[in-house]
């Protein structure tokens, strides 16, 4: 069983889980051609 300390840690982790970092949070802003992720057809090349 989790002790109270770990239980409260889990609560905070779970809260953060619902607003995970986005890829662009870790990148400088692209002012000219900003990243605009979208679902492209699977048959397009993906890499």
């Amino acid at each position, binding site marked *: 069983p989790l002790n109270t300390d770990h239980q409260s840690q889990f609560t905070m982790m779970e809260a953060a889980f619902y607003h*995970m*970092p986005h*890829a662009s949070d*870790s*990148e*400088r*802003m*692209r*002012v*000219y*051609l900003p*990243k*605009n*992720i*979208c*679902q*492209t*057809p699977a*048959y*397009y*090349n*993906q*890499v």
Partner: protein
Amino acid sequence: MIPNQFGIVGLLTFIRAAESDPSLVSLALGQDLTALGLNLNSPDNIYLSFAGPWADSACRPQDMDHNVPPEYLINGSIREKLAPVRLNRYKEDLLFYLFYSYVGDVLQIAAAAELYSREWRYHMEEKVWISQAPGMPMVEKTSTYERGTYYFFDAHNWRKVAKEFHLDYSKLEGRPQLPAHV
């Protein structure tokens, strides 16, 4: 035999549980680590294009910071003063560049739509762009397919190559649709 989780029977319980409830044994049987979006067979280092612990694929070239001369860095304020991106004014070369490097991005679809409007067609199985080769007669044409010599865009050698194709119309992509909010 040992009657608890420290013996073979205990492990057998896990193995059997794995069949019924895969989420239960993720630690004990692990996952297929080759399916985590990392190119583990790459002969080169992969950390420089590692897109982070939650990404499903590697960084694209344009996602990565390169030390460029400060003049190359576009200042946020003059962004609006620069000419907007207009794909219909660009040559095919640039359209193919955008299609092949902006994977998973709106720009890939936008470039595809512009290529389509210039009579290129994307072959969904061969995964190549194809267009009519001027002056090359069609050998055969039916309601479902046509055969003849066409240009296809060879992305590895970055050029148009003439080639004989049996074009099954059902394998050619229709007009690419830009996402509603773009």
